[in-house]
């Protein structure tokens, strides 16, 4: 098996060079590193979700999401889910336009994604405050522990993503991105979409069933 052809081709390719050095696979080091990181994140969140499922199935009683006693605010979280989905779309929009050379629209997409991500974190903080007021705290019961653990870690990931997106937005307005220089947007986008993906699963598992 020879990698000579993709290796040579990869080094010459402007898009791959935009990502930095390239392995023999023809895939940028940055992308492989990002996917390896996301692989570890997959295991992290699957561990949390798996623990939640195991704990839930192992309990004799569990608060029913359909009951009046269910403490979580579904409509508020549904709105938050809507925002996170929108943010993924605005980031795809930003990347597409940066790659197409439409810097203005690309920067606008980055700015929108940052703001929407910030709104998600703000709504989650508001939800936590409401739940605390109603006495639903991490020590309320095992569901409370699981809820704050999973949504807290996810929220921390979103917060980190918002910071990264804010940096990208500043870089974008400073003219750092172009059709051949977009690797940070693409790689941060992978992380952001992954965070969105985790929320899609958490929303159903924790809030709806």
């Amino acid at each position, binding site marked *: 098996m020879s990698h000579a052809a993709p290796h040579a*081709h990869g080094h010459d*390719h402007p*898009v791959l060079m935009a990502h930095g050095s390239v392995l023999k696979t*023809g*895939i940028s080091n940055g992308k*492989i590193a990002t*996917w390896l990181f*996301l*692989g570890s994140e*997959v*295991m992290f969140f*699957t*561990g949390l979700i*798996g623990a939640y*499922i*195991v704990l839930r*199935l*192992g*309990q*004799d*009683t569990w608060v*029913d*999401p*359909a*009951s*009046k*006693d269910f403490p979580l605010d*579904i*409509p508020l979280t*549904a709105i938050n*889910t*809507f925002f996170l*989905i929108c943010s993924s*779309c*605005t980031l*795809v*929009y930003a990347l*597409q*336009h940066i*790659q*197409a*050379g439409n810097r203005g*629209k690309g920067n606008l997409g980055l700015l929108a994604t940052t703001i929407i991500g910030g709104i998600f974190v703000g709504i989650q903080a508001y939800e936590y405050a409401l*739940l605390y007021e*109603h*006495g639903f705290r991490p020590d*309320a*019961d*095992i569901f409370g522990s699981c809820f704050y653990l999973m949504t807290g870690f996810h929220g921390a990931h979103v917060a980190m993503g918002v910071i990264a997106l804010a940096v990208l937005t500043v870089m974008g307005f400073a003219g750092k991105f172009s*059709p051949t220089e977009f690797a940070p947007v*693409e790689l941060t986008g*992978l992380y952001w*979409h992954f965070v969105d*993906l985790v929320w*899609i*699963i958490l929303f*159903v*598992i924790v809030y*709806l*069933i």
Partner: protein
Amino acid sequence: MTTAPTPSHSGRKHEHGVPLLALFIALLLLTGAEIALYEIYRHTEQAGHSFMPKTALVLVLLIGLTLPKAAIVLIYFMHLKFERQLIILLATVPLLMTFLVVLPILSDTLVLKGQGQAENQAVVGQYHAEGEHDAHATEEPHDGRSDEPY
């Protein structure tokens, strides 16, 4: 929001042809369907005649609605459809590995649950047999769950 024209990067198909508006609408519709289904179930359940069994609700929500949403994000937004095989392997292998770890534990919970119930009954019975004070018998269950509403 529509699909933006993208330059042709030969041999690199990612970011190309992602129908953004269609995917956005699909994600919104699927999320709306999830919430609508949950709300209908909640209202009918509270009225005492749920319109579908809980197991069916769980399956429809997870497999029918959440899985397609996750697939859209993974395949189109994270470009797995357009990536090389190595990236697809990097994305899927950790997921499969963790499922392989979690699945055997899931089967364990059924056993543990049965044991937990038996242990609870044994502990309560022991308290009664030893003539302990009623307060001991009404302590919180060992799982730490309180019966008080939030």
